[in-house]
Protein backbone atom coordinates (compact mmCIF):
# COMPACT_ATOMS: atom_id res chain seq x y z
CA UNK A 1 0.00 0.00 0.00
CA UNK A 2 2.83 2.33 0.99
CA UNK A 3 4.58 1.53 -2.31
CA UNK A 4 1.40 2.35 -4.23
CA UNK A 5 1.24 5.80 -2.62
CA UNK A 6 4.92 6.39 -3.33
CA UNK A 7 4.50 5.56 -7.01
CA UNK A 8 1.33 7.64 -7.26
CA UNK A 9 3.00 10.56 -5.53
CA UNK A 10 6.02 10.33 -7.83
CA UNK A 11 3.87 10.25 -10.96
CA UNK A 12 1.72 13.16 -9.81
CA UNK A 13 4.79 15.12 -8.80
CA UNK A 14 6.46 14.67 -12.18
CA UNK A 15 3.23 15.59 -13.97
CA UNK A 16 2.93 18.70 -11.82
CA UNK A 17 6.53 19.70 -12.56
CA UNK A 18 6.02 19.18 -16.27
CA UNK A 19 2.76 21.14 -16.17
CA UNK A 20 4.43 24.05 -14.39
CA UNK A 21 7.36 23.96 -16.80
CA UNK A 22 5.02 23.96 -19.74
CA UNK A 23 3.19 26.98 -18.35
CA UNK A 24 6.52 28.70 -17.81
CA UNK A 25 7.97 27.90 -21.21
CA UNK A 26 5.03 28.60 -23.47
CA UNK A 27 5.13 32.07 -25.10
CA UNK A 28 2.91 34.57 -23.29
CA UNK A 29 2.53 37.22 -26.02
CA UNK A 30 2.01 39.91 -23.40
CA UNK A 31 4.81 42.40 -24.03
CA UNK A 32 5.30 41.67 -27.71
CA UNK A 33 3.39 40.03 -30.56
CA UNK A 34 0.09 40.46 -28.72
CA UNK A 35 -1.67 38.78 -31.61
CA UNK A 36 -0.62 35.43 -30.17
CA UNK A 37 -2.81 35.95 -27.10
CA UNK A 38 -6.05 36.75 -28.88
CA UNK A 39 -7.59 33.34 -29.43
CA UNK A 40 -7.37 32.30 -25.76
CA UNK A 41 -8.93 35.57 -24.62
CA UNK A 42 -12.35 34.61 -25.97
CA UNK A 43 -12.87 31.94 -23.33
CA UNK A 44 -12.86 34.55 -20.56
CA UNK A 45 -15.59 36.63 -22.18
CA UNK A 46 -19.29 36.27 -21.36
CA UNK A 47 -20.92 34.04 -23.95
CA UNK A 48 -23.79 36.20 -25.10
CA UNK A 49 -22.63 37.20 -28.55
CA UNK A 50 -25.11 37.50 -31.39
CA UNK A 51 -22.37 37.95 -33.94
CA UNK A 52 -19.00 36.20 -34.21
CA UNK A 53 -16.36 37.50 -36.61
CA UNK A 54 -13.81 35.04 -37.98
CA UNK A 55 -10.71 35.56 -40.07
CA UNK A 56 -7.25 37.02 -40.28
CA UNK A 57 -5.81 40.44 -39.47
CA UNK A 58 -8.39 42.01 -41.76
CA UNK A 59 -10.95 41.03 -39.12
CA UNK A 60 -9.34 41.88 -35.82
CA UNK A 61 -8.10 45.23 -37.10
CA UNK A 62 -11.26 46.24 -38.96
CA UNK A 63 -14.29 45.52 -36.75
CA UNK A 64 -14.65 47.05 -33.32
CA UNK A 65 -17.40 45.39 -31.24
CA UNK A 66 -17.52 48.44 -28.97
CA UNK A 67 -18.59 50.67 -31.86
CA UNK A 68 -21.23 48.13 -32.90
CA UNK A 69 -22.44 48.02 -29.32
CA UNK A 70 -22.61 51.78 -28.90
CA UNK A 71 -24.22 52.46 -32.27
CA UNK A 72 -26.52 49.46 -32.64
CA UNK A 73 -26.56 47.56 -29.34
CA UNK A 74 -25.00 44.55 -31.07
CA UNK A 75 -23.17 42.08 -28.85
CA UNK A 76 -20.32 40.67 -30.90
CA UNK A 77 -16.88 39.12 -30.62
CA UNK A 78 -13.98 38.95 -33.06
CA UNK A 79 -12.32 35.54 -33.09
CA UNK A 80 -9.56 36.67 -35.38
CA UNK A 81 -5.89 35.76 -35.49
CA UNK A 82 -2.92 36.50 -37.70
CA UNK A 83 -3.05 34.68 -41.01
CA UNK A 84 -6.02 32.63 -39.83
CA UNK A 85 -6.64 30.12 -42.58
CA UNK A 86 -10.13 29.17 -43.76
CA UNK A 87 -10.01 25.73 -42.16
CA UNK A 88 -8.87 27.29 -38.91
CA UNK A 89 -11.84 29.67 -39.06
CA UNK A 90 -14.11 26.67 -39.59
CA UNK A 91 -12.75 24.87 -36.54
CA UNK A 92 -12.89 28.04 -34.46
CA UNK A 93 -16.57 28.25 -35.37
CA UNK A 94 -17.06 24.63 -34.40
CA UNK A 95 -15.27 25.42 -31.13
CA UNK A 96 -17.38 28.54 -30.53
CA UNK A 97 -20.59 26.55 -30.96
CA UNK A 98 -19.66 24.57 -27.85
CA UNK A 99 -20.11 27.76 -25.85
CA UNK A 100 -22.78 29.73 -27.68
CA UNK A 101 -24.77 29.89 -30.90
CA UNK A 102 -24.59 33.32 -32.51
CA UNK A 103 -27.24 34.61 -34.85
CA UNK A 104 -24.68 35.58 -37.47
CA UNK A 105 -21.12 34.67 -38.38
CA UNK A 106 -19.04 37.15 -40.36
CA UNK A 107 -16.12 35.53 -42.20
CA UNK A 108 -13.38 37.45 -43.97
CA UNK A 109 -12.43 35.90 -47.31
CA UNK A 110 -8.86 37.11 -47.88
CA UNK A 111 -7.47 33.80 -46.57
CA UNK A 112 -9.17 31.98 -49.45
CA UNK A 113 -5.97 32.70 -51.37
CA UNK A 114 -4.09 30.20 -49.22
CA UNK A 115 -4.48 26.74 -50.68
CA UNK A 116 -2.37 24.93 -48.13
CA UNK A 117 -0.84 25.26 -44.64
CA UNK A 118 1.58 28.16 -44.44
CA UNK A 119 3.84 28.27 -41.40
CA UNK A 120 4.12 27.15 -37.83
CA UNK A 121 4.52 30.55 -36.21
CA UNK A 122 1.05 31.58 -37.38
CA UNK A 123 -0.43 28.15 -36.73
CA UNK A 124 0.73 28.44 -33.15
CA UNK A 125 -0.95 31.81 -32.69
CA UNK A 126 -4.30 30.35 -33.70
CA UNK A 127 -4.06 26.83 -32.31
CA UNK A 128 -2.19 27.10 -29.01
CA UNK A 129 -4.91 29.33 -27.56
CA UNK A 130 -7.67 26.77 -28.10
CA UNK A 131 -8.49 24.31 -25.31
CA UNK A 132 -7.71 20.69 -26.13
CA UNK A 133 -10.58 19.00 -27.92
CA UNK A 134 -11.30 16.92 -30.99
CA UNK A 135 -12.02 20.20 -32.77
CA UNK A 136 -8.56 21.48 -31.94
CA UNK A 137 -6.95 18.21 -33.00
CA UNK A 138 -8.74 18.33 -36.33
CA UNK A 139 -7.63 21.91 -36.84
CA UNK A 140 -4.05 20.97 -35.99
CA UNK A 141 -4.08 18.07 -38.45
CA UNK A 142 -5.20 20.17 -41.37
CA UNK A 143 -3.03 23.16 -40.42
CA UNK A 144 0.32 21.48 -39.86
CA UNK A 145 3.17 22.11 -42.23
CA UNK A 146 5.46 19.28 -43.25
CA UNK A 147 7.88 19.53 -40.34
CA UNK A 148 5.35 19.93 -37.57
CA UNK A 149 4.21 17.23 -35.18
CA UNK A 150 0.78 16.85 -33.64
CA UNK A 151 2.42 15.77 -30.38
CA UNK A 152 4.11 19.13 -30.10
CA UNK A 153 0.68 20.73 -30.14
CA UNK A 154 -0.78 18.29 -27.62
CA UNK A 155 2.24 18.68 -25.34
CA UNK A 156 3.63 22.14 -26.14
CA UNK A 157 6.56 21.60 -23.79
CA UNK A 158 8.01 19.34 -26.47
CA UNK A 159 8.06 22.33 -28.81
CA UNK A 160 9.02 25.08 -26.41
CA UNK A 161 11.45 23.25 -24.16
CA UNK A 162 14.42 25.15 -25.50
CA UNK A 163 12.90 28.53 -24.68
CA UNK A 164 14.45 28.14 -21.24
CA UNK A 165 17.47 30.07 -22.50
CA UNK A 166 15.37 33.13 -23.27
CA UNK A 167 12.89 33.20 -20.41
CA UNK A 168 12.09 36.66 -19.14
CA UNK A 169 10.11 38.24 -16.35
CA UNK A 170 7.04 38.09 -18.61
CA UNK A 171 7.12 34.30 -18.51
CA UNK A 172 6.82 34.30 -14.74
CA UNK A 173 4.41 37.20 -14.40
CA UNK A 174 1.92 35.75 -16.88
CA UNK A 175 2.43 32.09 -16.10
CA UNK A 176 -1.15 31.60 -14.94
CA UNK A 177 -3.03 34.78 -15.75
CA UNK A 178 -2.78 37.01 -18.77
CA UNK A 179 -3.89 40.54 -19.40
CA UNK A 180 -6.46 41.31 -22.05
CA UNK A 181 -4.86 42.46 -25.29
CA UNK A 182 -8.03 43.22 -27.28
CA UNK A 183 -11.46 44.76 -26.90
CA UNK A 184 -13.77 41.82 -27.54
CA UNK A 185 -11.28 40.60 -30.10
CA UNK A 186 -10.59 43.96 -31.77
CA UNK A 187 -6.97 45.11 -31.69
CA UNK A 188 -6.70 48.87 -32.21
CA UNK A 189 -3.85 50.42 -34.16
CA UNK A 190 -3.21 54.18 -34.07
CA UNK A 191 -1.10 55.86 -36.71
CA UNK A 192 -1.39 57.25 -40.20
CA UNK A 193 0.64 56.18 -43.21
CA UNK A 194 -1.26 57.04 -46.37
CA UNK A 195 -1.45 54.84 -49.44
CA UNK A 196 1.23 55.81 -51.93
CA UNK A 197 2.01 54.02 -55.15
CA UNK A 198 0.96 50.41 -54.93
CA UNK A 199 3.07 47.73 -56.59
CA UNK A 200 1.82 46.58 -59.96
CA UNK A 201 -0.81 43.86 -59.87
CA UNK A 202 1.01 40.67 -60.69
CA UNK A 203 -0.62 38.12 -62.96
CA UNK A 204 -1.14 34.74 -61.30
CA UNK A 205 -0.70 31.33 -62.92
CA UNK A 206 -4.12 30.31 -61.65
CA UNK A 207 -6.84 32.35 -59.98
CA UNK A 208 -8.97 29.41 -58.93
CA UNK A 209 -9.21 29.04 -55.16
CA UNK A 210 -7.65 25.85 -53.86
CA UNK A 211 -9.65 22.73 -53.04
CA UNK A 212 -8.88 22.91 -49.32
CA UNK A 213 -10.16 26.45 -48.69
CA UNK A 214 -13.18 25.79 -50.90
CA UNK A 215 -13.94 22.61 -48.97
CA UNK A 216 -13.83 24.44 -45.66
CA UNK A 217 -15.75 27.43 -46.92
CA UNK A 218 -18.49 24.99 -47.91
CA UNK A 219 -18.25 23.27 -44.52
CA UNK A 220 -18.56 26.64 -42.81
CA UNK A 221 -21.68 27.46 -44.82
CA UNK A 222 -23.12 24.04 -44.03
CA UNK A 223 -22.33 24.32 -40.33
CA UNK A 224 -23.97 27.72 -40.16
CA UNK A 225 -27.01 26.44 -42.00
CA UNK A 226 -27.32 23.43 -39.70
CA UNK A 227 -27.29 25.73 -36.69
CA UNK A 228 -29.61 28.39 -38.07
CA UNK A 229 -26.79 30.94 -38.30
CA UNK A 230 -26.61 33.60 -40.99
CA UNK A 231 -23.23 33.44 -42.73
CA UNK A 232 -21.96 36.76 -44.05
CA UNK A 233 -18.78 36.77 -46.10
CA UNK A 234 -16.82 40.01 -46.06
CA UNK A 235 -13.75 41.53 -47.63
CA UNK A 236 -12.07 44.31 -45.67
CA UNK A 237 -11.28 47.60 -47.45
CA UNK A 238 -7.52 46.96 -47.48
CA UNK A 239 -6.03 47.77 -50.89
CA UNK A 240 -3.03 45.45 -50.53
CA UNK A 241 -2.41 42.50 -50.85
CA UNK A 242 -4.22 42.53 -54.16
CA UNK A 243 -7.74 41.14 -54.05
CA UNK A 244 -8.17 40.03 -57.63
CA UNK A 245 -11.47 40.49 -59.49
CA UNK A 246 -11.37 36.81 -60.40
CA UNK A 247 -11.18 35.92 -56.72
CA UNK A 248 -14.05 38.23 -55.96
CA UNK A 249 -16.15 36.62 -58.70
CA UNK A 250 -15.67 33.20 -57.10
CA UNK A 251 -16.92 34.53 -53.77
CA UNK A 252 -19.91 36.11 -55.47
CA UNK A 253 -20.68 32.77 -57.16
CA UNK A 254 -20.28 30.84 -53.91
CA UNK A 255 -22.59 33.25 -52.13
CA UNK A 256 -25.26 32.90 -54.77
CA UNK A 257 -25.02 29.11 -54.84
CA UNK A 258 -25.22 28.78 -51.07
CA UNK A 259 -27.65 31.53 -50.26
CA UNK A 260 -25.19 33.41 -48.07
CA UNK A 261 -24.43 37.12 -48.13
CA UNK A 262 -21.26 38.76 -49.34
CA UNK A 263 -20.35 42.30 -48.35
CA UNK A 264 -17.25 43.75 -49.96
CA UNK A 265 -16.15 46.70 -47.87
CA UNK A 266 -13.39 47.10 -50.43
CA UNK A 267 -15.92 47.89 -53.13
CA UNK A 268 -17.98 49.98 -50.72
CA UNK A 269 -15.02 52.03 -49.47
CA UNK A 270 -16.41 55.30 -50.81
CA UNK A 271 -19.84 54.64 -49.33
CA UNK A 272 -18.26 53.83 -45.98
CA UNK A 273 -16.17 56.98 -46.19
CA UNK A 274 -12.81 55.24 -46.07
CA UNK A 275 -10.07 57.72 -46.87
CA UNK A 276 -6.81 55.87 -47.33
CA UNK A 277 -4.87 59.09 -46.77
CA UNK A 278 -5.87 59.05 -43.09
CA UNK A 279 -7.63 55.75 -42.33
CA UNK A 280 -4.64 53.43 -42.63
CA UNK A 281 -1.43 53.08 -40.65
CA UNK A 282 0.49 51.01 -43.20
CA UNK A 283 -0.11 52.18 -46.77
CA UNK A 284 -3.56 50.66 -47.08
CA UNK A 285 -2.76 47.15 -45.90
CA UNK A 286 -4.83 47.58 -42.74
CA UNK A 287 -7.14 50.28 -41.45
CA UNK A 288 -6.29 52.21 -38.30
CA UNK A 289 -8.74 53.01 -35.52
CA UNK A 290 -10.39 55.73 -37.63
CA UNK A 291 -10.95 53.32 -40.49
CA UNK A 292 -12.02 50.49 -38.21
CA UNK A 293 -14.68 52.64 -36.54
CA UNK A 294 -16.12 53.58 -39.94
CA UNK A 295 -16.17 49.92 -41.02
CA UNK A 296 -17.70 48.85 -37.72
CA UNK A 297 -20.51 51.35 -38.07
CA UNK A 298 -21.10 50.24 -41.65
CA UNK A 299 -21.24 46.51 -40.91
CA UNK A 300 -23.16 47.17 -37.70
CA UNK A 301 -25.85 48.96 -39.68
CA UNK A 302 -26.12 46.02 -42.08
CA UNK A 303 -26.27 43.50 -39.24
CA UNK A 304 -28.94 45.51 -37.50
CA UNK A 305 -31.12 46.42 -40.49
CA UNK A 306 -30.71 43.47 -42.83
CA UNK A 307 -30.14 40.63 -40.38
CA UNK A 308 -32.25 41.85 -37.47
CA UNK A 309 -29.46 41.44 -34.94
CA UNK A 310 -31.12 42.64 -31.73
CA UNK A 311 -30.31 45.81 -29.84
CA UNK A 312 -29.43 44.80 -26.28
CA UNK A 313 -28.80 48.29 -24.94
CA UNK A 314 -30.76 48.77 -21.76
CA UNK A 315 -30.49 45.13 -20.72
CA UNK A 316 -28.59 45.00 -17.45
CA UNK A 317 -26.40 41.97 -18.11
CA UNK A 318 -25.23 43.42 -21.41
CA UNK A 319 -24.81 46.99 -20.14
CA UNK A 320 -22.75 45.79 -17.22
CA UNK A 321 -20.28 44.14 -19.58
CA UNK A 322 -20.20 46.47 -22.54
CA UNK A 323 -20.34 49.77 -20.62
CA UNK A 324 -17.02 49.46 -18.80
CA UNK A 325 -15.36 47.69 -21.75
CA UNK A 326 -16.30 50.48 -24.15
CA UNK A 327 -15.24 53.17 -21.67
CA UNK A 328 -11.85 51.50 -21.47
CA UNK A 329 -11.78 51.15 -25.25
CA UNK A 330 -12.24 54.90 -25.73
CA UNK A 331 -9.71 55.77 -23.05
CA UNK A 332 -7.15 53.43 -24.59
CA UNK A 333 -7.65 54.49 -28.19
CA UNK A 334 -7.60 58.18 -27.24
CA UNK A 335 -4.34 57.65 -25.37
CA UNK A 336 -2.90 55.78 -28.37
CA UNK A 337 -3.76 58.69 -30.66
CA UNK A 338 -2.41 61.22 -28.16
CA UNK A 339 0.90 59.37 -28.17
CA UNK A 340 0.99 59.07 -31.91
CA UNK A 341 0.20 62.72 -32.61
CA UNK A 342 2.75 63.79 -30.01
CA UNK A 343 5.37 61.80 -31.89
CA UNK A 344 4.20 62.98 -35.30
CA UNK A 345 3.81 66.75 -35.08
CA UNK A 346 3.46 67.03 -38.86
CA UNK A 347 -0.04 65.66 -38.46
CA UNK A 348 -2.69 67.77 -36.80
CA UNK A 349 -5.60 66.27 -34.96
CA UNK A 350 -8.94 67.37 -36.33
Amino acid at each position, binding site marked *: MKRFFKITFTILFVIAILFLLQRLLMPKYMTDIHEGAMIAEYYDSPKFHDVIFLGDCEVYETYSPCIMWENYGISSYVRGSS*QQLIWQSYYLLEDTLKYETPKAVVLNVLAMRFAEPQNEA*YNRMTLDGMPMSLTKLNSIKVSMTED*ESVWEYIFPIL*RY*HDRYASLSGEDVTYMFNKDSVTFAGYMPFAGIKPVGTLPAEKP*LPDYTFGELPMEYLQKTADLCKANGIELILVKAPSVYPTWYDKWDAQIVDFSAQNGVSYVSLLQESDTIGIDMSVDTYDNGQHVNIYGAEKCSDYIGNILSKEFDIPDHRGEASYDEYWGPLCDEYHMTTEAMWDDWYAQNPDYSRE
Partner: protein
Amino acid sequence: MKKNVIKTIVAGSMLALALTACGGATEETKDYSSAFTDDAGNASAETDADANVDAADETGADASEDQTSADRFAFTYNGTKIELGASYDDVKAAIGDATSEFTQNSCAFDGCLNMYTYGSSFEIDETVLDSGEAPYISAIYLTDDLVSTEEGLSVFMTKDDAVSIYGEPDEEGDSYIKYKSGDSVISIIFDDGSDTIASICISLDEF
Protein backbone atom coordinates in the same frame (compact mmCIF):
# COMPACT_ATOMS: atom_id res chain seq x y z
CA MET B 1 10.25 8.58 4.44
CA LYS B 2 11.80 12.03 4.37
CA LYS B 3 14.74 10.65 2.32
CA ASN B 4 12.34 9.10 -0.17
CA VAL B 5 10.46 12.34 -0.64
CA ILE B 6 13.71 14.14 -1.29
CA LYS B 7 14.73 11.41 -3.76
CA THR B 8 11.43 11.78 -5.56
CA ILE B 9 11.74 15.53 -5.76
CA VAL B 10 15.30 15.29 -7.04
CA ALA B 11 14.36 12.64 -9.60
CA GLY B 12 11.39 14.62 -10.81
CA SER B 13 13.39 17.80 -11.06
CA MET B 14 16.16 16.04 -12.96
CA LEU B 15 13.68 14.59 -15.41
CA ALA B 16 12.14 18.01 -15.92
CA LEU B 17 15.51 19.64 -16.33
CA ALA B 18 16.62 16.95 -18.74
CA LEU B 19 13.53 17.51 -20.84
CA THR B 20 14.01 21.23 -20.69
CA ALA B 21 17.61 21.03 -21.67
CA CYS B 22 17.29 18.47 -24.43
CA GLY B 23 18.04 19.98 -27.75
CA GLY B 24 19.70 22.90 -26.10
CA ALA B 25 19.90 26.43 -27.29
CA THR B 26 22.34 25.58 -29.99
CA GLU B 27 20.44 22.74 -31.52
CA GLU B 28 19.18 23.39 -34.95
CA THR B 29 15.45 22.96 -34.97
CA LYS B 30 12.77 23.87 -37.42
CA ASP B 31 12.72 27.28 -38.92
CA TYR B 32 9.63 29.34 -39.33
CA SER B 33 9.06 30.71 -42.73
CA SER B 34 8.16 34.26 -43.39
CA ALA B 35 5.39 36.11 -41.73
CA PHE B 36 4.20 37.47 -45.01
CA THR B 37 3.27 36.10 -48.36
CA ASP B 38 3.22 37.28 -51.89
CA ASP B 39 0.09 37.99 -53.91
CA ALA B 40 -0.13 34.40 -54.94
CA GLY B 41 -0.35 33.32 -51.35
CA ASN B 42 3.04 31.68 -51.30
CA ALA B 43 5.01 31.97 -48.11
CA SER B 44 8.35 33.52 -48.74
CA ALA B 45 11.52 31.68 -48.04
CA GLU B 46 13.19 33.39 -45.16
CA THR B 47 13.49 32.05 -41.70
CA ASP B 48 11.69 33.94 -39.01
CA ALA B 49 13.59 33.85 -35.79
CA ASP B 50 10.57 34.82 -33.80
CA ALA B 51 11.95 35.13 -30.32
CA ASN B 52 8.58 34.81 -28.69
CA VAL B 53 7.66 31.60 -30.42
CA ASP B 54 11.03 30.03 -30.09
CA ALA B 55 14.20 31.92 -29.34
CA ALA B 56 16.27 28.85 -29.98
CA ASP B 57 15.10 28.50 -33.55
CA GLU B 58 18.16 29.98 -35.10
CA THR B 59 18.86 28.09 -38.22
CA GLY B 60 21.61 30.54 -38.92
CA ALA B 61 21.80 30.75 -42.63
CA ASP B 62 19.00 32.16 -44.70
CA ALA B 63 18.21 31.05 -48.19
CA SER B 64 20.75 33.40 -49.63
CA GLU B 65 23.71 31.96 -47.81
CA ASP B 66 23.44 28.27 -48.45
CA GLN B 67 23.67 28.34 -52.18
CA THR B 68 26.25 29.56 -54.56
CA SER B 69 24.82 32.13 -56.88
CA ALA B 70 26.40 30.55 -59.95
CA ASP B 71 23.42 28.30 -60.67
CA ARG B 72 20.75 30.89 -60.02
CA PHE B 73 18.80 32.75 -62.65
CA ALA B 74 19.68 36.44 -62.66
CA PHE B 75 18.76 39.63 -64.48
CA THR B 76 21.04 42.27 -65.93
CA TYR B 77 20.00 45.90 -66.15
CA ASN B 78 22.20 48.59 -67.65
CA GLY B 79 25.23 46.35 -67.27
CA THR B 80 24.51 45.53 -63.62
CA LYS B 81 23.82 41.91 -62.82
CA ILE B 82 21.03 41.68 -60.27
CA GLU B 83 21.32 38.41 -58.41
CA LEU B 84 18.98 36.65 -56.05
CA GLY B 85 20.31 36.66 -52.52
CA ALA B 86 22.31 39.83 -53.14
CA SER B 87 22.02 43.08 -51.23
CA TYR B 88 19.54 45.53 -52.71
CA ASP B 89 21.60 48.44 -51.41
CA ASP B 90 24.48 47.33 -53.60
CA VAL B 91 22.17 47.05 -56.59
CA LYS B 92 20.65 50.44 -55.91
CA ALA B 93 24.08 52.01 -55.78
CA ALA B 94 24.64 50.74 -59.30
CA ILE B 95 21.27 51.24 -61.00
CA GLY B 96 19.81 54.13 -59.02
CA ASP B 97 16.71 54.66 -56.94
CA ALA B 98 13.44 52.96 -57.71
CA THR B 99 10.55 54.90 -59.16
CA SER B 100 8.40 53.83 -56.24
CA GLU B 101 8.72 51.71 -53.13
CA PHE B 102 6.21 49.73 -51.14
CA THR B 103 6.68 47.80 -47.93
CA GLN B 104 4.50 44.84 -47.12
CA ASN B 105 4.67 44.35 -43.39
CA SER B 106 4.08 41.00 -41.83
CA CYS B 107 1.11 40.59 -39.55
CA ALA B 108 2.33 40.39 -35.98
CA PHE B 109 6.02 39.94 -36.79
CA ASP B 110 8.73 42.44 -37.64
CA GLY B 111 9.83 41.08 -40.98
CA CYS B 112 8.76 42.73 -44.21
CA LEU B 113 8.99 42.60 -47.96
CA ASN B 114 10.21 45.73 -49.71
CA MET B 115 9.11 46.10 -53.31
CA TYR B 116 11.16 48.47 -55.48
CA THR B 117 9.53 49.33 -58.78
CA TYR B 118 11.54 50.68 -61.71
CA GLY B 119 9.07 52.37 -64.04
CA SER B 120 6.86 49.88 -65.79
CA SER B 121 9.78 47.57 -66.52
CA PHE B 122 10.65 45.59 -63.43
CA GLU B 123 10.29 45.18 -59.69
CA ILE B 124 12.89 43.98 -57.21
CA ASP B 125 11.61 42.38 -54.00
CA GLU B 126 13.80 42.50 -50.93
CA THR B 127 13.11 40.24 -47.98
CA VAL B 128 13.88 41.69 -44.58
CA LEU B 129 14.05 39.20 -41.76
CA ASP B 130 13.13 40.02 -38.20
CA SER B 131 16.12 38.01 -37.05
CA GLY B 132 18.50 40.82 -37.87
CA GLU B 133 20.16 38.95 -40.71
CA ALA B 134 21.06 40.89 -43.81
CA PRO B 135 18.13 41.68 -46.13
CA TYR B 136 18.39 40.06 -49.54
CA ILE B 137 16.79 40.12 -52.97
CA SER B 138 14.26 37.30 -53.11
CA ALA B 139 12.44 37.98 -56.39
CA ILE B 140 12.63 40.03 -59.56
CA TYR B 141 9.55 40.64 -61.74
CA LEU B 142 9.90 41.70 -65.38
CA THR B 143 6.77 43.50 -66.47
CA ASP B 144 7.39 45.02 -69.89
CA ASP B 145 9.46 44.36 -72.99
CA LEU B 146 12.01 47.07 -72.34
CA VAL B 147 13.92 44.51 -70.30
CA SER B 148 14.63 40.84 -70.76
CA THR B 149 16.15 37.93 -68.89
CA GLU B 150 19.84 37.20 -69.22
CA GLU B 151 18.91 34.59 -71.79
CA GLY B 152 16.85 37.08 -73.82
CA LEU B 153 13.24 36.35 -72.87
CA SER B 154 10.88 39.26 -72.32
CA VAL B 155 7.22 40.01 -71.77
CA PHE B 156 5.03 39.85 -74.92
CA MET B 157 7.14 37.05 -76.38
CA THR B 158 5.50 33.63 -76.67
CA LYS B 159 5.62 30.25 -75.04
CA ASP B 160 7.45 28.91 -78.08
CA ASP B 161 10.09 31.60 -77.60
CA ALA B 162 10.51 30.52 -73.98
CA VAL B 163 10.83 26.86 -74.93
CA SER B 164 13.32 27.66 -77.67
CA ILE B 165 15.45 29.56 -75.14
CA TYR B 166 15.11 27.42 -72.02
CA GLY B 167 14.01 24.04 -73.40
CA GLU B 168 11.18 21.91 -72.05
CA PRO B 169 9.80 23.36 -68.81
CA ASP B 170 10.31 21.70 -65.43
CA GLU B 171 6.72 22.47 -64.51
CA GLU B 172 3.78 23.44 -66.67
CA GLY B 173 0.21 24.57 -66.04
CA ASP B 174 -2.63 25.96 -68.14
CA SER B 175 -1.22 29.46 -68.06
CA TYR B 176 2.34 29.15 -66.83
CA ILE B 177 5.62 27.32 -67.19
CA LYS B 178 8.53 27.11 -64.76
CA TYR B 179 12.21 26.38 -65.03
CA LYS B 180 14.51 25.63 -62.13
CA SER B 181 18.20 26.28 -61.75
CA GLY B 182 19.96 25.65 -58.47
CA ASP B 183 17.64 27.03 -55.82
CA SER B 184 16.09 29.56 -58.17
CA VAL B 185 13.04 29.46 -60.38
CA ILE B 186 11.92 31.42 -63.38
CA SER B 187 8.13 31.52 -63.63
CA ILE B 188 6.62 32.59 -66.94
CA ILE B 189 2.96 33.51 -66.87
CA PHE B 190 0.83 33.88 -69.99
CA ASP B 191 -2.09 36.13 -70.73
CA ASP B 192 -5.46 34.46 -70.32
CA GLY B 193 -6.13 31.98 -73.10
CA SER B 194 -3.03 32.80 -75.04
CA ASP B 195 0.65 31.93 -75.28
CA THR B 196 1.76 35.53 -74.89
CA ILE B 197 3.96 36.16 -71.89
CA ALA B 198 2.36 38.53 -69.38
CA SER B 199 4.94 38.38 -66.61
CA ILE B 200 8.30 36.83 -65.81
CA CYS B 201 9.33 36.23 -62.24
CA ILE B 202 12.82 35.20 -61.19
CA SER B 203 12.81 34.07 -57.59
CA LEU B 204 14.31 31.84 -54.97
CA ASP B 205 12.73 28.40 -55.12
CA GLU B 206 10.71 28.68 -51.91
CA PHE B 207 9.33 32.08 -52.74
